[in-house]
């Protein structure tokens, strides 16, 4: 099976499941929109993380089945949300004191492009899509660990490049890239493939990656 024939139906689950293994019990974590929000459901029961929502929650919970506080407790998209018992509502100043001040253990977010130096582009496609950076620039600068969780390619085109061509979100901020094809560490010398999807060959991953890719001598199967 090659990259093009990889079963794409559970692609997001593959990524989210693997990212979940990066989190430790007690971690304070900020999850970006989309794929990253799937991560908590794959956490082992003995790993409890506290979720931050930059809108103003420490200990954010899931979307409520019955909305107890309509329009007063929302997520970053303005949709109904909830807070866990023992959580705290905070203002935006405190929210970014947490984020910029290095108090967030890990942030998981998507990317348009990542490159060999760990540069990240995920907020603008000039002339096409200008939504604004929201809290992303602060998150990737401030979080102790930045994990990019994304599909390896975009309509067959590599997103992992020697050098980002889109405007950057931040310089050298990415620590780890998790895709459906494998797990890639950002090292001082460049990118290192440490785990691979068992349905793929190394050549598949290399072919789908525009950046030079070292292969770990202890390459393992991605779980």
């Amino acid at each position, binding site marked *: 099976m090659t990259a093009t024939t990889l079963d794409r139906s559970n692609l997001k689950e593959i990524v989210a499941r693997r990212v979940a293994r990066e989190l430790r019990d007690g971690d304070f974590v900020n999850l970006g929109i989309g794929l990253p929000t799937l991560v908590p459901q794959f956490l082992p029961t003995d790993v409890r993380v506290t979720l931050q929502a930059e809108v103003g929650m420490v200990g954010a919970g899931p979307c409520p089945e019955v909305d107890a506080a309509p329009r*007063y407790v*929302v997520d970053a998209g303005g949709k109904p949300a909830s807070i866990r018992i023992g959580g705290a509502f905070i203002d*935006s100043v405190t929210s*970014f004191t947490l984020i*910029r001040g290095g108090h967030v253990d890990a942030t998981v977010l998507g990317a348009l492009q990542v490159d060999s130096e760990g540069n990240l582009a995920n907020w603008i496609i000039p002339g096409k899509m200008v*939504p*604004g950076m929201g809290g992303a*620039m602060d998150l990737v*600068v401030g979080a102790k660990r930045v994990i990019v969780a994304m599909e390896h390619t975009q309509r067959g085109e590599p997103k992992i490049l020697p050098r980002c061509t889109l405007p950057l979100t931040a310089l050298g901020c990415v620590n780890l890239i998790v895709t459906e094809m494998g797990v890639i560490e950002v090292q001082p010398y460049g990118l290192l493939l440490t785990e691979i999807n068992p349905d793929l060959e190394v050549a598949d991953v290399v072919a789908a990656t525009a950046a030079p890719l070292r292969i770990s001598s202890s390459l393992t199967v991605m779980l």
Partner: protein
Amino acid sequence: MSKLISVEDAVANISDGMSIMAGGFMGCGNAHNLVQAIIDAGLKDLTMISNDASMPGYGIAKLVEQRRVRKLITSHVGLNPQVAVQMNAGELEVELVPQGTLVERIRSGGAGLGGVLTPTGIGTLVADGKPVITVDGREYLLEKPLRADVALISGYRVDKNGNIWYRGDARNFNPVMATAADVVIVEADHLVELGDIPAEDVVTPGVFVDYIVTGGSL
């Protein structure tokens, strides 16, 4: 000297071309009645400072939809499609600011500081034209303080001194914006008696607040 006034009298503090800070995050924490009153008063050419442009038909999104906004200083406009339309047509100027930088610029304006030294934005488009200051070997952007003519604050419980308690995450930018405008107007969901908010639980002390209007609700 009561701070309690009508929504119409409150909005009479605003003129065409003024800068307005509006608390809220995707409309959660917008002062909805004050926004409507601004529209009803025919005010225009406003500079809006807010985390985002809310969502279609809700809160401050209406100011954009009704073409009352000349300039937006904000971190995210992706959920309000009208912004892109007007921006691409050259009718609306948008200054995008990282969210953490936006909140600190406002804080700086309210706290009498000369600006913010932040690592956020270094090496990106955000850094264009801004001074870079090196402190202990690390580079920081110098981002300038932000203040506004008027701040529109949404509070859940407000007493007659203007003390505010916020519900849920409707808090967001409201407390910091209440520090950084010449005229601060709070829209109260519930007007309460002095002492009903314990002194320890007041989030925004009333001395920041100039006027109170009632009838708020998200």
